[in-house]
Protein backbone atom coordinates (compact mmCIF):
# COMPACT_ATOMS: atom_id res chain seq x y z
CA UNK A 1 0.00 0.00 0.00
CA UNK A 2 0.95 3.65 -0.45
CA UNK A 3 2.55 5.77 2.27
CA UNK A 4 2.33 9.52 2.72
CA UNK A 5 1.29 11.47 -0.42
CA UNK A 6 3.52 14.36 -1.51
CA UNK A 7 2.77 17.21 -3.94
CA UNK A 8 5.05 15.43 -6.40
CA UNK A 9 3.24 12.08 -6.00
CA UNK A 10 1.29 10.85 -9.02
CA UNK A 11 -1.87 9.35 -7.56
CA UNK A 12 -3.75 6.85 -9.71
CA UNK A 13 -6.33 4.15 -9.13
CA UNK A 14 -4.61 1.02 -7.84
CA UNK A 15 -4.58 -2.08 -10.06
CA UNK A 16 -8.02 -3.61 -10.55
CA UNK A 17 -9.82 -0.55 -9.21
CA UNK A 18 -12.06 1.18 -11.74
CA UNK A 19 -13.92 4.44 -11.93
CA UNK A 20 -17.32 3.37 -13.17
CA UNK A 21 -20.65 5.03 -13.79
CA UNK A 22 -23.58 3.27 -12.11
CA UNK A 23 -26.26 4.07 -14.69
CA UNK A 24 -29.12 2.50 -12.75
CA UNK A 25 -28.62 4.71 -9.72
CA UNK A 26 -27.10 7.72 -11.50
CA UNK A 27 -23.88 7.62 -9.46
CA UNK A 28 -20.15 7.58 -9.99
CA UNK A 29 -18.43 4.72 -8.20
CA UNK A 30 -15.09 3.04 -7.74
CA UNK A 31 -15.33 -0.72 -8.16
CA UNK A 32 -12.79 -2.59 -6.05
CA UNK A 33 -12.40 -6.15 -4.75
CA UNK A 34 -15.63 -6.94 -2.87
CA UNK A 35 -16.06 -3.18 -2.32
CA UNK A 36 -18.06 -0.43 -3.96
CA UNK A 37 -17.31 3.21 -3.20
CA UNK A 38 -19.93 5.81 -4.08
CA UNK A 39 -18.39 9.14 -5.12
CA UNK A 40 -19.95 12.53 -4.53
CA UNK A 41 -19.35 15.28 -7.12
CA UNK A 42 -16.19 16.47 -5.36
CA UNK A 43 -14.69 12.99 -5.13
CA UNK A 44 -15.52 12.37 -8.77
CA UNK A 45 -13.92 15.67 -9.84
CA UNK A 46 -10.76 14.64 -8.00
CA UNK A 47 -10.58 10.99 -9.06
CA UNK A 48 -11.33 11.72 -12.70
CA UNK A 49 -8.13 13.83 -12.71
CA UNK A 50 -6.01 10.95 -11.37
CA UNK A 51 -4.91 9.80 -14.82
CA UNK A 52 -1.52 8.36 -13.93
CA UNK A 53 0.20 11.46 -15.43
CA UNK A 54 -0.83 14.36 -13.21
CA UNK A 55 0.96 14.96 -9.90
CA UNK A 56 -0.96 15.95 -6.80
CA UNK A 57 0.16 19.56 -7.41
CA UNK A 58 -1.16 19.49 -10.98
CA UNK A 59 -4.48 17.98 -9.85
CA UNK A 60 -4.89 20.77 -7.29
CA UNK A 61 -4.09 23.39 -9.98
CA UNK A 62 -6.63 21.89 -12.33
CA UNK A 63 -9.35 21.92 -9.65
CA UNK A 64 -8.55 25.52 -8.71
CA UNK A 65 -9.00 26.48 -12.37
CA UNK A 66 -12.34 24.65 -12.57
CA UNK A 67 -13.67 25.99 -9.26
CA UNK A 68 -12.36 29.60 -9.11
CA UNK A 69 -14.74 30.57 -6.28
CA UNK A 70 -13.28 28.07 -3.83
CA UNK A 71 -10.20 29.11 -1.80
CA UNK A 72 -7.03 27.39 -2.98
CA UNK A 73 -6.05 26.30 0.53
CA UNK A 74 -9.41 24.61 1.03
CA UNK A 75 -9.15 22.78 -2.29
CA UNK A 76 -5.58 21.67 -1.56
CA UNK A 77 -6.52 20.40 1.90
CA UNK A 78 -9.67 18.59 0.67
CA UNK A 79 -7.90 16.91 -2.25
CA UNK A 80 -4.99 15.74 -0.12
CA UNK A 81 -7.30 14.47 2.60
CA UNK A 82 -9.50 12.53 0.20
CA UNK A 83 -6.65 10.96 -1.77
CA UNK A 84 -4.67 10.09 1.35
CA UNK A 85 -7.78 8.38 2.80
CA UNK A 86 -8.24 6.37 -0.41
CA UNK A 87 -4.52 5.53 -0.48
CA UNK A 88 -4.79 4.18 3.08
CA UNK A 89 -7.66 1.96 1.87
CA UNK A 90 -5.61 0.71 -1.07
CA UNK A 91 -7.89 2.34 -3.67
CA UNK A 92 -5.23 4.83 -4.76
CA UNK A 93 -1.59 4.04 -5.53
CA UNK A 94 1.12 6.63 -6.02
Amino acid at each position, binding site marked *: *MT*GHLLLTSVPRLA*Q*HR*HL*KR*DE*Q*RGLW*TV*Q*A*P*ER*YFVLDDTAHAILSRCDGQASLAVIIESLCASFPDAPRDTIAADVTHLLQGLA*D*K*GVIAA
Partner: protein
Amino acid sequence: MIPDPPLAVLAELTHRCPLQCPYCSNPLDLERAAGEMTTDEWRDAIRQASELGCMQIHFSGGEPTVRPDLEMLVAEAAAAGLYTNLITSGVLCDRARLERLASAGLEHVQLSFQGATSDVGDRIGGHTGGHEKKRLFARHVRGAGLPLTANFVVHRQNLHQLDAMIEMAVGIGAERAEIANVQYYGWALQNRAALMPSRAQLDAMIEKVSAARERLKGVMAIDFVTPDYYAKRPKACMGGWGRRFLNISPSGKVLPCHAAESITTLTFDTVRERPLADIWLHSPAFQAFRGTDWMPQPCRSCDRKDIDWGGCRCQAFAITGDAAQTDPACALSNDHDRLVSIASEEAQSGGDGFITRNFRSAKLAPTL
Protein backbone atom coordinates in the same frame (compact mmCIF):
# COMPACT_ATOMS: atom_id res chain seq x y z
CA MET B 1 -42.91 -0.39 -2.72
CA ILE B 2 -40.56 -0.75 -5.68
CA PRO B 3 -37.24 -2.14 -4.43
CA ASP B 4 -33.91 -0.68 -5.48
CA PRO B 5 -31.95 -2.82 -7.93
CA PRO B 6 -29.41 -5.27 -6.49
CA LEU B 7 -25.72 -4.34 -6.29
CA ALA B 8 -24.15 -7.77 -6.49
CA VAL B 9 -24.91 -11.29 -7.64
CA LEU B 10 -23.40 -14.47 -6.26
CA ALA B 11 -23.28 -17.06 -9.04
CA GLU B 12 -23.04 -20.50 -7.46
CA LEU B 13 -22.06 -22.29 -10.64
CA THR B 14 -21.95 -25.77 -9.12
CA HIS B 15 -22.13 -27.68 -5.87
CA ARG B 16 -19.35 -30.03 -6.97
CA CYS B 17 -16.23 -29.53 -4.86
CA PRO B 18 -13.11 -31.56 -4.04
CA LEU B 19 -13.25 -30.24 -0.46
CA GLN B 20 -15.66 -31.44 2.22
CA CYS B 21 -15.67 -28.59 4.73
CA PRO B 22 -18.08 -29.37 7.58
CA TYR B 23 -19.46 -25.79 7.61
CA CYS B 24 -20.10 -25.49 3.87
CA SER B 25 -22.68 -22.82 3.07
CA ASN B 26 -24.27 -24.92 0.33
CA PRO B 27 -27.64 -26.50 1.11
CA LEU B 28 -27.76 -30.05 2.52
CA ASP B 29 -29.60 -31.08 -0.61
CA LEU B 30 -26.65 -30.62 -2.99
CA GLU B 31 -27.37 -30.13 -6.69
CA ARG B 32 -25.90 -32.82 -8.95
CA ALA B 33 -23.96 -31.95 -12.13
CA ALA B 34 -26.92 -32.96 -14.31
CA GLY B 35 -29.08 -30.27 -12.70
CA GLU B 36 -26.63 -27.41 -13.36
CA MET B 37 -27.43 -24.66 -15.83
CA THR B 38 -25.73 -24.79 -19.21
CA THR B 39 -23.15 -22.24 -20.38
CA ASP B 40 -25.80 -20.38 -22.39
CA GLU B 41 -28.22 -20.32 -19.49
CA TRP B 42 -25.52 -18.83 -17.25
CA ARG B 43 -24.54 -16.28 -19.88
CA ASP B 44 -28.12 -15.17 -20.16
CA ALA B 45 -28.46 -14.95 -16.37
CA ILE B 46 -25.26 -12.87 -16.17
CA ARG B 47 -26.53 -10.41 -18.79
CA GLN B 48 -29.83 -10.13 -16.96
CA ALA B 49 -28.07 -9.45 -13.65
CA SER B 50 -26.14 -6.60 -15.24
CA GLU B 51 -29.25 -5.15 -16.91
CA LEU B 52 -31.05 -5.32 -13.58
CA GLY B 53 -28.37 -3.11 -12.00
CA CYS B 54 -25.77 -5.44 -10.46
CA MET B 55 -22.28 -3.92 -10.48
CA GLN B 56 -20.32 -6.93 -9.21
CA ILE B 57 -20.44 -10.69 -9.71
CA HIS B 58 -18.92 -13.30 -7.43
CA PHE B 59 -18.29 -16.67 -9.08
CA SER B 60 -18.59 -19.31 -6.42
CA GLY B 61 -19.80 -22.84 -5.80
CA GLY B 62 -19.02 -25.54 -4.72
CA GLU B 63 -15.77 -25.09 -6.54
CA PRO B 64 -16.41 -22.85 -9.57
CA THR B 65 -13.27 -24.01 -11.42
CA VAL B 66 -14.79 -27.49 -11.91
CA ARG B 67 -16.83 -25.80 -14.65
CA PRO B 68 -14.74 -25.87 -17.84
CA ASP B 69 -16.71 -22.87 -19.12
CA LEU B 70 -15.66 -20.55 -16.28
CA GLU B 71 -13.45 -18.47 -18.62
CA MET B 72 -16.41 -17.89 -20.93
CA LEU B 73 -18.62 -16.84 -18.05
CA VAL B 74 -15.99 -14.44 -16.70
CA ALA B 75 -15.65 -12.96 -20.19
CA GLU B 76 -19.42 -12.60 -20.46
CA ALA B 77 -19.55 -10.81 -17.10
CA ALA B 78 -16.68 -8.49 -17.99
CA ALA B 79 -18.32 -7.66 -21.33
CA ALA B 80 -21.55 -6.86 -19.47
CA GLY B 81 -19.62 -4.37 -17.32
CA LEU B 82 -19.62 -6.43 -14.11
CA TYR B 83 -16.67 -6.37 -11.73
CA THR B 84 -15.65 -10.00 -11.40
CA ASN B 85 -14.53 -11.93 -8.35
CA LEU B 86 -13.59 -15.61 -8.10
CA ILE B 87 -14.26 -17.36 -4.77
CA THR B 88 -12.26 -20.56 -4.86
CA SER B 89 -10.55 -23.30 -2.89
CA GLY B 90 -7.64 -23.00 -5.31
CA VAL B 91 -6.91 -26.74 -5.47
CA LEU B 92 -7.95 -27.37 -9.08
CA CYS B 93 -6.65 -24.35 -10.96
CA ASP B 94 -3.13 -24.33 -12.42
CA ARG B 95 -1.18 -21.31 -13.50
CA ALA B 96 -2.15 -21.49 -17.17
CA ARG B 97 -5.83 -21.56 -16.33
CA LEU B 98 -5.54 -18.68 -13.89
CA GLU B 99 -3.83 -16.64 -16.58
CA ARG B 100 -6.66 -17.46 -18.98
CA LEU B 101 -9.16 -16.30 -16.36
CA ALA B 102 -7.20 -13.06 -15.86
CA SER B 103 -7.17 -12.49 -19.63
CA ALA B 104 -10.91 -13.11 -19.72
CA GLY B 105 -11.36 -10.18 -17.34
CA LEU B 106 -11.08 -11.57 -13.82
CA GLU B 107 -10.41 -8.74 -11.35
CA HIS B 108 -9.97 -10.37 -7.94
CA VAL B 109 -9.55 -13.74 -6.24
CA GLN B 110 -10.79 -14.78 -2.83
CA LEU B 111 -8.94 -17.94 -1.78
CA SER B 112 -10.12 -20.06 1.14
CA PHE B 113 -7.85 -21.75 3.67
CA GLN B 114 -9.05 -24.20 6.33
CA GLY B 115 -6.07 -23.67 8.62
CA ALA B 116 -2.55 -22.26 8.74
CA THR B 117 -0.81 -25.62 8.26
CA SER B 118 -1.33 -28.76 6.16
CA ASP B 119 -2.27 -31.01 9.08
CA VAL B 120 -5.11 -28.80 10.25
CA GLY B 121 -6.18 -27.46 6.84
CA ASP B 122 -6.26 -30.84 5.10
CA ARG B 123 -8.19 -32.48 7.93
CA ILE B 124 -10.87 -29.75 8.08
CA GLY B 125 -11.17 -29.55 4.29
CA GLY B 126 -11.12 -33.34 3.93
CA HIS B 127 -8.65 -33.09 1.05
CA THR B 128 -5.13 -34.45 1.38
CA GLY B 129 -2.51 -32.13 -0.09
CA GLY B 130 -5.02 -29.30 -0.41
CA HIS B 131 -3.22 -26.80 1.79
CA GLU B 132 0.00 -26.89 -0.25
CA LYS B 133 -1.98 -26.61 -3.51
CA LYS B 134 -3.64 -23.50 -2.13
CA ARG B 135 -0.32 -21.91 -1.29
CA LEU B 136 0.92 -22.62 -4.80
CA PHE B 137 -2.29 -21.19 -6.28
CA ALA B 138 -1.81 -18.01 -4.22
CA ARG B 139 1.55 -17.53 -5.95
CA HIS B 140 -0.16 -17.85 -9.35
CA VAL B 141 -2.71 -15.21 -8.34
CA ARG B 142 -0.06 -12.70 -7.27
CA GLY B 143 2.06 -13.64 -10.30
CA ALA B 144 -0.86 -12.70 -12.55
CA GLY B 145 -1.06 -9.30 -10.81
CA LEU B 146 -4.49 -9.99 -9.35
CA PRO B 147 -5.47 -8.71 -5.91
CA LEU B 148 -5.88 -11.54 -3.41
CA THR B 149 -8.10 -11.94 -0.37
CA ALA B 150 -7.30 -14.85 1.95
CA ASN B 151 -10.42 -16.25 3.57
CA PHE B 152 -10.28 -18.23 6.79
CA VAL B 153 -13.41 -19.74 8.29
CA VAL B 154 -12.61 -20.10 11.98
CA HIS B 155 -14.10 -22.37 14.63
CA ARG B 156 -13.11 -24.32 17.72
CA GLN B 157 -10.89 -26.75 15.81
CA ASN B 158 -8.64 -24.19 14.09
CA LEU B 159 -8.86 -20.98 16.11
CA HIS B 160 -5.60 -21.81 17.90
CA GLN B 161 -3.94 -21.00 14.55
CA LEU B 162 -5.41 -17.51 14.22
CA ASP B 163 -2.10 -15.64 14.50
CA ALA B 164 -0.42 -18.08 12.13
CA MET B 165 -3.27 -17.64 9.61
CA ILE B 166 -2.82 -13.87 9.62
CA GLU B 167 0.95 -14.25 9.26
CA MET B 168 0.50 -16.66 6.36
CA ALA B 169 -1.94 -14.28 4.63
CA VAL B 170 0.68 -11.52 4.77
CA GLY B 171 3.32 -13.97 3.52
CA ILE B 172 1.35 -14.97 0.42
CA GLY B 173 0.76 -11.32 -0.49
CA ALA B 174 -2.93 -11.03 0.38
CA GLU B 175 -4.09 -7.42 0.56
CA ARG B 176 -7.00 -8.46 2.75
CA ALA B 177 -7.70 -11.33 5.12
CA GLU B 178 -11.22 -12.31 5.99
CA ILE B 179 -11.46 -14.07 9.34
CA ALA B 180 -15.02 -15.34 9.45
CA ASN B 181 -16.51 -17.35 12.26
CA VAL B 182 -18.82 -20.12 11.10
CA GLN B 183 -22.45 -19.09 10.61
CA TYR B 184 -24.73 -21.92 11.62
CA TYR B 185 -27.04 -22.99 8.79
CA GLY B 186 -27.18 -26.14 6.67
CA TRP B 187 -24.00 -28.20 7.01
CA ALA B 188 -22.62 -25.98 9.78
CA LEU B 189 -25.79 -26.45 11.81
CA GLN B 190 -25.36 -30.23 11.51
CA ASN B 191 -21.79 -29.87 12.80
CA ARG B 192 -22.39 -27.06 15.28
CA ALA B 193 -21.31 -29.00 18.38
CA ALA B 194 -17.94 -29.78 16.77
CA LEU B 195 -17.32 -26.18 15.68
CA MET B 196 -18.76 -23.75 18.24
CA PRO B 197 -16.15 -21.73 20.15
CA SER B 198 -16.62 -20.65 23.77
CA ARG B 199 -17.16 -17.02 24.66
CA ALA B 200 -13.65 -16.90 26.16
CA GLN B 201 -12.24 -18.19 22.87
CA LEU B 202 -14.21 -15.53 20.98
CA ASP B 203 -12.88 -12.80 23.27
CA ALA B 204 -9.32 -14.03 22.67
CA MET B 205 -9.91 -13.98 18.89
CA ILE B 206 -11.20 -10.40 18.99
CA GLU B 207 -8.13 -9.34 20.94
CA LYS B 208 -5.76 -11.03 18.48
CA VAL B 209 -7.51 -9.52 15.46
CA SER B 210 -7.42 -6.01 16.95
CA ALA B 211 -3.71 -6.34 17.69
CA ALA B 212 -3.02 -7.64 14.17
CA ARG B 213 -5.01 -4.82 12.56
CA GLU B 214 -2.91 -2.29 14.40
CA ARG B 215 0.35 -4.10 13.57
CA LEU B 216 -0.53 -4.50 9.87
CA LYS B 217 -1.94 -1.04 9.14
CA GLY B 218 -0.98 -0.19 5.57
CA VAL B 219 0.12 -3.79 4.89
CA MET B 220 -3.05 -5.89 4.99
CA ALA B 221 -6.65 -5.17 5.95
CA ILE B 222 -8.48 -7.66 8.17
CA ASP B 223 -12.24 -8.24 8.14
CA PHE B 224 -13.64 -10.13 11.10
CA VAL B 225 -17.05 -11.83 11.28
CA THR B 226 -18.16 -12.84 14.79
CA PRO B 227 -20.23 -15.92 15.63
CA ASP B 228 -23.55 -14.25 16.21
CA TYR B 229 -24.73 -16.69 18.90
CA TYR B 230 -22.70 -14.52 21.30
CA ALA B 231 -23.89 -11.19 19.87
CA LYS B 232 -26.14 -8.62 21.55
CA ARG B 233 -27.66 -7.35 18.33
CA PRO B 234 -28.07 -9.32 15.10
CA LYS B 235 -26.01 -8.87 11.98
CA ALA B 236 -27.54 -6.89 9.10
CA CYS B 237 -27.77 -10.12 7.15
CA MET B 238 -27.18 -9.50 3.41
CA GLY B 239 -27.71 -5.78 4.13
CA GLY B 240 -31.43 -6.61 4.29
CA TRP B 241 -33.47 -9.32 2.58
CA GLY B 242 -33.87 -8.63 -1.16
CA ARG B 243 -32.26 -5.23 -0.77
CA ARG B 244 -28.80 -5.36 -2.37
CA PHE B 245 -27.97 -8.91 -3.17
CA LEU B 246 -29.13 -11.97 -5.01
CA ASN B 247 -27.81 -15.49 -5.32
CA ILE B 248 -28.27 -17.83 -8.27
CA SER B 249 -27.98 -21.54 -7.46
CA PRO B 250 -26.42 -24.12 -9.83
CA SER B 251 -29.87 -25.01 -11.20
CA GLY B 252 -30.87 -21.36 -11.59
CA LYS B 253 -32.89 -20.83 -8.43
CA VAL B 254 -32.80 -17.17 -7.43
CA LEU B 255 -32.30 -16.70 -3.70
CA PRO B 256 -32.07 -13.66 -1.41
CA CYS B 257 -29.05 -15.31 0.25
CA HIS B 258 -27.02 -18.48 -0.22
CA ALA B 259 -28.65 -20.18 2.79
CA ALA B 260 -32.25 -19.20 1.94
CA GLU B 261 -33.20 -22.70 0.80
CA SER B 262 -32.89 -23.77 4.45
CA ILE B 263 -36.20 -21.91 4.93
CA THR B 264 -38.36 -24.76 3.73
CA THR B 265 -41.58 -22.75 3.92
CA LEU B 266 -40.49 -20.59 0.95
CA THR B 267 -40.40 -21.56 -2.70
CA PHE B 268 -37.92 -20.01 -5.11
CA ASP B 269 -38.29 -19.17 -8.78
CA THR B 270 -35.61 -20.02 -11.33
CA VAL B 271 -34.09 -17.91 -14.11
CA ARG B 272 -34.85 -20.83 -16.39
CA GLU B 273 -38.55 -20.08 -16.04
CA ARG B 274 -38.91 -16.43 -15.09
CA PRO B 275 -36.93 -13.26 -15.95
CA LEU B 276 -34.50 -12.20 -13.25
CA ALA B 277 -35.97 -8.69 -12.94
CA ASP B 278 -39.45 -10.13 -12.45
CA ILE B 279 -38.16 -12.45 -9.71
CA TRP B 280 -36.31 -9.60 -7.98
CA LEU B 281 -39.29 -7.25 -8.14
CA HIS B 282 -42.27 -9.51 -7.65
CA SER B 283 -41.50 -13.05 -6.48
CA PRO B 284 -43.15 -13.96 -3.15
CA ALA B 285 -39.85 -15.24 -1.68
CA PHE B 286 -38.13 -11.87 -2.25
CA GLN B 287 -41.15 -9.91 -1.06
CA ALA B 288 -41.58 -12.04 2.08
CA PHE B 289 -39.05 -10.23 4.29
CA ARG B 290 -38.19 -7.15 2.26
CA GLY B 291 -38.23 -3.80 4.08
CA THR B 292 -39.69 -3.59 7.57
CA ASP B 293 -43.47 -4.16 7.16
CA TRP B 294 -43.22 -7.92 7.81
CA MET B 295 -41.55 -7.42 11.19
CA PRO B 296 -43.00 -8.69 14.46
CA GLN B 297 -42.38 -7.00 17.81
CA PRO B 298 -39.88 -6.14 19.22
CA CYS B 299 -38.34 -5.45 15.75
CA ARG B 300 -41.27 -3.36 14.51
CA SER B 301 -40.77 -0.63 17.11
CA CYS B 302 -36.98 -1.00 17.34
CA ASP B 303 -34.88 2.03 16.42
CA ARG B 304 -32.36 -0.30 14.76
CA LYS B 305 -34.83 -1.86 12.31
CA ASP B 306 -33.37 0.12 9.38
CA ILE B 307 -29.84 -0.78 10.50
CA ASP B 308 -29.95 -4.54 11.02
CA TRP B 309 -33.15 -5.25 9.03
CA GLY B 310 -34.25 -7.71 11.69
CA GLY B 311 -31.12 -9.85 11.38
CA CYS B 312 -31.10 -13.23 9.71
CA ARG B 313 -34.26 -15.00 8.51
CA CYS B 314 -32.49 -18.35 8.09
CA GLN B 315 -31.35 -18.24 11.69
CA ALA B 316 -34.84 -17.35 12.93
CA PHE B 317 -36.18 -20.35 11.01
CA ALA B 318 -33.40 -22.71 12.13
CA ILE B 319 -33.85 -21.91 15.82
CA THR B 320 -37.57 -21.10 16.16
CA GLY B 321 -39.12 -22.86 13.16
CA ASP B 322 -40.63 -19.52 12.04
CA ALA B 323 -38.65 -17.39 9.58
CA ALA B 324 -40.65 -14.27 10.55
CA GLN B 325 -39.55 -14.32 14.18
CA THR B 326 -36.97 -11.93 15.62
CA ASP B 327 -33.47 -13.29 14.95
CA PRO B 328 -32.54 -15.16 18.17
CA ALA B 329 -29.07 -13.56 17.93
CA CYS B 330 -30.77 -10.38 19.18
CA ALA B 331 -30.76 -10.05 22.98
CA LEU B 332 -34.36 -8.76 22.71
CA SER B 333 -35.55 -12.08 21.23
CA ASN B 334 -37.40 -14.49 23.55
CA ASP B 335 -35.16 -17.24 22.18
CA HIS B 336 -31.85 -15.47 22.81
CA ASP B 337 -31.06 -17.06 26.18
CA ARG B 338 -31.66 -20.48 24.70
CA LEU B 339 -29.28 -19.67 21.83
CA VAL B 340 -26.54 -18.58 24.22
CA SER B 341 -26.91 -21.70 26.36
CA ILE B 342 -26.78 -23.95 23.27
CA ALA B 343 -23.54 -22.23 22.29
CA SER B 344 -21.95 -22.47 25.74
CA GLU B 345 -22.95 -26.10 26.24
CA GLU B 346 -21.80 -27.24 22.80
CA ALA B 347 -18.52 -25.34 23.13
CA GLN B 348 -17.90 -27.29 26.37
CA SER B 349 -19.16 -30.76 25.59
CA GLY B 350 -19.17 -31.11 21.78
CA GLY B 351 -16.91 -33.74 20.21
CA ASP B 352 -14.52 -33.26 17.29
CA GLY B 353 -16.16 -35.54 14.71
CA PHE B 354 -17.83 -34.09 11.58
CA ILE B 355 -20.51 -35.05 9.14
CA THR B 356 -18.42 -34.39 6.04
CA ARG B 357 -19.94 -32.34 3.26
CA ASN B 358 -20.24 -34.55 0.19
CA PHE B 359 -22.88 -36.05 -2.05
CA ARG B 360 -23.06 -39.25 0.02
CA SER B 361 -23.80 -37.41 3.29
CA ALA B 362 -26.24 -35.16 1.42
CA LYS B 363 -28.42 -38.23 0.96
CA LEU B 364 -28.06 -39.38 4.56
CA ALA B 365 -28.31 -36.09 6.41
CA PRO B 366 -31.60 -35.58 8.20
CA THR B 367 -33.56 -32.55 7.07
CA LEU B 368 -33.78 -30.06 9.91
